[in-house]
């Protein structure tokens, strides 16, 4: 209970608020502003109206049981003129109290509510840890002991850890870590959602993992073994989500990734697309992992993958994808963390070139198009036409199978593949997955 001096102080402040600023003060607003219970606020308002009520319009709240059948409980907010009429409709024992005071009553009832709402929003927007009067209803006349509030309040990164319990643990913690680490790096909300979506992508990837690996035998153990090793080896890595992926991917896989990321070397790529593709890429790689791997090529191409991972690690859209291959070659798979942050000033672009190779297959190659023409790495992507070659990546995620729609967002379209139809191997023409949605 506020004592009389503080009450007087509040009344004075009220006077200033209402007359000078012509605010609308409701009892609830008053109680939350001056941290008094709502019943006390009502009394204060009553006193205020008695003292300084001239020139002010008062809204009263009339509540009670109706007299007419069927008996119902009614709450009304009325002006002084309607007060008696409203009271007459109610049975004995109805209560009247001041709802709000203002210089003039607005016509729209929503305006009576809006100052309260603004105040409520302020309280609501406070950090989730803070317990304020909105959140614990402390100024009401009724208390409930059942209510328990969880103050953690992290909503976005609620990647369900309870999902897919059959998934082996090692990849998962790494994933979570990467999610949060990306969040740490992210500077805007967009990336946050991206992170979530990336998490989705990864979760999908996990699902696929789950589905596809159940049929396999001991190779699965190896699959899981390697990612876990890698992820454990790279705890300081806090960027690319590709990190936990084993470096023992196939040549084609690496090329695949590179293509996907090579396409992203354009200026106008956004965070979203890159990280999203990261998720997409993960899916692809996992699929490929399930199919037989080629270890020799994998080892040599490991460094390519590091390159791409660097690509993924770039958050800022302005920066181009670069690095020195030499540095890559020098660095080991153990020290991936070092590679990722490095940015090479030299500009390079990946270019797709199609040619017919000796076996008569149409081969689309990715060539680094820089000051060092074509002596640099060339990865081959084989078409699905050669079914006996299992290294060929099986169908990449659906978004990548739309070369037609990539025209608008093609990153590198200097030499588009001559085959207009489905390319089982992803080329840079595919652009990003979002272009598919944008077209809609």
């Amino acid at each position, binding site marked *: 209970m506020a004592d009389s001096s503080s009450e007087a102080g509040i009344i004075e402040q009220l006077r200033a608020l209402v007359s000078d600023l012509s605010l609308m003060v409701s009892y609830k607003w008053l109680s939350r502003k001056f941290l008094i219970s709502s019943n006390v606020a009502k009394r204060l308002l009553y006193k205020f109206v008695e003292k300084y009520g001239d020139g002010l319009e008062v809204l009263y709240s009339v509540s009670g049981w109706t007299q007419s059948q069927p008996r119902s409980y*009614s709450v009304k907010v009325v002006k002084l003129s309607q007060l008696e009429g409203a009271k007459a409709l109610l049975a004995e024992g109805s209560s009247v109290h001041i709802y709000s005071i203002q210089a003039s009553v607005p016509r729209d009832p*929503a305006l009576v509510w809006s100052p309260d709402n603004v105040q409520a929003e302020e309280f609501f927007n406070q950090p989730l840890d803070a317990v304020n009067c909105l959140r614990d209803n402390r100024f009401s006349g009724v208390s409930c002991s059942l209510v328990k509030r969880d103050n953690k309040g992290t909503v976005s990164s609620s990647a369900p850890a309870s999902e897919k319990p059959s998934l082996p643990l090692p990849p998962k913690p790494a994933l979570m870590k990467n999610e949060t680490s990306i969040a740490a790096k992210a500077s805007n909300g967009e990336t946050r959602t991206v992170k979530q979506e990336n998490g989705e992508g990864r979760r999908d990837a996990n699902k696929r993992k789950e589905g596809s690996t159940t049929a396999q035998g001991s190779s699965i153990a190896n699959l899981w073994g390697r990612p876990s090793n890698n992820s454990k080896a790279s705890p300081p890595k806090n960027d690319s989500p590709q990190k936990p992926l084993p470096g023992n991917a196939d040549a084609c896989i690496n090329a695949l990734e590179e293509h996907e990321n090579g396409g992203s070397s354009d200026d106008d790529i956004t965070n979203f697309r890159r990280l999203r593709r990261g998720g997409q890429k993960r899916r692809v790689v996992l699929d490929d992992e399930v199919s037989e791997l080629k270890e020799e090529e994998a080892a040599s191409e490991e460094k390519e993958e590091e390159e791409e991972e660097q690509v993924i690690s770039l958050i800022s859209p302005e920066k181009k994808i670069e690095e020195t291959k030499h540095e890559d070659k020098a660095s080991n798979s153990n020290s991936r963390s070092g590679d990722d942050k490095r940015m090479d000033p030299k500009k390079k672009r990946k270019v797709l070139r199609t040619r017919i190779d000796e076996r008569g297959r149409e081969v689309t190659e990715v060539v680094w198009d820089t000051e060092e023409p074509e002596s640099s790495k060339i990865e081959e992507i084989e078409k699905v036409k050669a079914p006996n070659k299992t290294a060929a990546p099986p169908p990449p995620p659906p978004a990548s199978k739309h070369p037609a729609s990539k025209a608008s967002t093609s990153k590198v379209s200097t030499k588009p593949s001559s085959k207009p139809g489905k390319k089982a191997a992803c080329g840079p023409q595919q652009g990003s997955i979002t272009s598919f949605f944008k077209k809609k």
Partner: protein
Amino acid sequence: DEDFERRDQRYKGQQYSHLYYCRLHKFREVLGSIVQSSLPRVPVSPILGLKDGKRCVVIGTVYKQMKLKPSILDEYAKERTKPLATASSFMHSEDYLVLEDASGRVKLVGSMIVPSNYVTGIVIAAWGQGGKDGDFFVRQIIEPGLPPQSPLPSITGKPACPYLKFRDKYVALVSGLRIGSDHCNPLQIQLLVDHLTGHLGDEQEQMLSAQVVRLIVAGNSLDVQYNLLAGQAISAKDQARLTEPVKELDIVLTQVTAAMPVDIMPGANDPANFTLPQQPLHKCLFPGASAYSTFLSATNPHRFELDGIEFLGTSGQNVDDLEKYSEAKDVIELMERTLRWRHIAPTAPDTLAGCFPYTDKDPFVLDTCPHVYFCGNQKSFMSRLVTGMYIWKLVRAISIPRFCDSGTAVMVTCSDRLFVGFQHR
């Protein structure tokens, strides 16, 4: 609520036949026993085994052949002879019923049958005889009737605290808040919240608020502006317009969950899935309110129990659909019929658009009878005590009016299922 949660069900391209089969199977047992007790010497025969003139009972699913029922095939018909039907009712005088069981179909004729009282999807037993034209002349329709009900906990047995008089507990039901729509009055909602949380009124009134132990929000709490979701990229301003109502609803819910347990059910216009049973609204929509232990996001239909009293209710889609395809005095009668048919949403896969094709069960079949049965988003508040064949089965059926139109919420006492309407200006 566990029956209504999707859990591990996955859509693998299955059809609705499993759902119907489960329904028929379940009711065949129920109806079989009822028929045996009421018509002991009459055999139950499969439809294909019907003989001319022989009296028997057939049990099957009703299919109502409706002339005005919109069908996708009409678009391909060469002549558009179908008379235009209003969107509200598809009844026609020439509708007839067909009974279908596992073996075959037969048309039901007779003066006892009033097709307007029945809908497609209910399972009934018909006592009559096979007619000459392959029709079945019906003498009596036997419905499953109200399901078994657990007895109400007796109030006198409750050990009352010596200091407090035993007071009724109330459950507040509200639906159709429609935050975000043009004609929603936020002041009304705020008054409701203030009352429920105990701010409004003097001490006496606040005692009344203290008696409210739970709030159920039965659907249509949000009004999503669908025209913004036209498939193009949404600008930031539009995004704000889309998310503002959700935020407002969250603030409202936060205020109430800080005071009492709240269950929120999805409705037809809410951002939840479309097919029934609707899954709970995701708690990421309510970052503020979901932090409370008193917050519960429930399915639609929602079943819960409080103090031994069973509540069951929907957000209104089932009853609205029944209204379109059958005739009844009022909404309560439709609800009563669903109780007698022991099925909350009999038109579910047929016309009540969107029902998940379950393969192993039909979740809308009522095994036990609730004590309070409510239905949200109706035009007006109505309530009645529905009795079964035996007097001691009592159900309080309540139709909750839309709050945005009427400003009325409903409070149900738990002691003797009286009701109280709540009016806000």
